[in-house]
């Protein structure tokens, strides 16, 4: 009975806040914009998201993740909110101890820690970067997991695998759109943790196999997946876990 709450608008239009208001923000997007434009050789669509006025915030009654570095960080924050909330429910489940063996409990408890740290890091880091600009920090999203049975090992691990693989692909695909080198390094510090997680979950599901870095995610060049936000958001929406509407009109 639920309608799809997350939508992606392919057309990058909408009300734009003034350049003046953007310039107040402490270098979040401004410094890198010239670099990114210089780096576009021809058909690269990176230029689409660098309009400096595309800040996160409510547009037409729905929160939009925004564009540029602020948009990418807010996008990452949304994904981390989902992961953190999921593992919170996993470890808080009153059947946690009965559903998972000791090793699995340790892994899931660690993943809970890491993802909550990621979420809380983005909360404070984005708020600091957008200091003095009310309404630009993505609110706490609401989640529901009707398709997940938290008392079922297979169901939880399969969901974890999907979330971690999606996180890896999302960070890999978003890196090129980040213009501030410091933010790129931070994204790099996080994505390798997501990949370590994905590997561990996959090995719990199918130990002793090649699945930890399986041919379903690593191609013939030895490259992991990389998908841009406009590819990731529909995938995440299709899981139907996120119940709060938001848009991603300005992300590539």
């Amino acid at each position, binding site marked *: 009975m639920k309608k799809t709450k997350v939508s992606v608008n392919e057309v990058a239009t909408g009300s734009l806040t003034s350049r003046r208001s953007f310039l107040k923000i402490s270098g979040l997007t401004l410094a890198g914009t010239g*670099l990114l434009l210089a780096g576009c050789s021809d058909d690269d669509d990176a230029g689409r998201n660098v309009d400096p006025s595309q800040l996160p915030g409510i547009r037409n009654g729905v929160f939009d993740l925004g564009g540029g570095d602020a948009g990418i960080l807010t996008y990452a924050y949304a994904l981390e909110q989902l992961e953190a909330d999921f593992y*919170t429910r996993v470890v808080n489940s009153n059947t946690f101890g009965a559903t998972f063996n000791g090793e699995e409990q340790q892994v899931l408890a660690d993943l809970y820690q890491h993802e*909550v740290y990621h979420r809380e*890091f983005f909360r404070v880091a984005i708020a600091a970067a957008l200091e003095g600009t009310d309404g630009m920090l993505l609110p706490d999203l609401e989640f529901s997991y009707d398709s997940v049975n938290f008392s079922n090992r297979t169901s939880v691990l399969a969901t974890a695998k999907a979330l971690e693989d999606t996180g890896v692909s999302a960070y890999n695909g978003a890196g090129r759109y980040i213009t501030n080198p410091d933010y790129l390094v931070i994204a790099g510090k996080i994505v390798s943790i997501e990949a370590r997680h994905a590997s561990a979950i996959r090995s719990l599901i199918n130990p002793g196999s090649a699945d930890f870095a399986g041919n379903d995610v690593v191609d*013939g060049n*030895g490259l992991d997946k990389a998908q841009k936000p406009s590819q990731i958001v529909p995938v995440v929406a299709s899981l139907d876990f996120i119940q709060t509407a938001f848009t991603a009109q300005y992300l590539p």
Partner: protein
Amino acid sequence: MNILKLIESFTNEGVIKSLGEKQSRRDSFAQFGKIGAGAAMAALPLSMLFTTKARAQSSTPETATAALQLALTLEYLEDEFYAIALDTNGLIPAADQAIIAQISQHEADHVAFLQQALGNAAPAKPEFDFTGAQGGAQPALLDPFGDYATFLAVAQAFEDTGVRAYKGQAGNLMSNGDLLTAALQIHSVEARHASQIRRLRGQKGWITGNSRGDLPSFTQPIYDGEQNTVHGGANIVGLTATNGPALTNNGATESFDEILTGQQATTIASIFIVP
């Protein structure tokens, strides 16, 4: 093919598609060859790219080419290491064969990918000595092909190094989004490997503090700095969970990996390179 050609070729949609659609390496390389003539066209945008290049903090090497050269050297190291292990009768237990073979395949793929990318700029494969004896110049530190536990320990050291080294070069590849993306795609594969090798050894898949665990002391530079909890000026220690178990300091150090500079990664790799 050289790096200039690669950069231009990466802007060819067909190549990008081929990378994304799991075509065979042979197919991708055939496409690279077809458009290799675009090198001259690349001259102008490249000069702009490299002069406007963003720099990672205190990281050497500082060009995209040097970053890929470092990457290739590390991949040579890993590739030869796993290939020798798979060729050593009785070293790898049957239960772990599929895992080691998969990692070995990826490292071979990475070598081929980076060699093709660098073309004439690709460094020759160094002579490696995985015992740490530097080709007999000093006593051996290890016997990785005579003892499986030692093999896994060295594998962990290599994989954890690879993750940090690629991360450290990301800033040097910002001038070209396709190169950066490819490096990130290798980086996360190395992280998957690292987690698996660590878990085979009974370790967590992630690094706690700056602990090298039970690895020998000469590996400590691989883990130095991993205890960092300040990211973008924000110290994550002290952040709290709104719902759920309390956050721990160990969790804070585990939740972010750290970079190695090019110089740090080179120093670590040099332990196994015959001078």
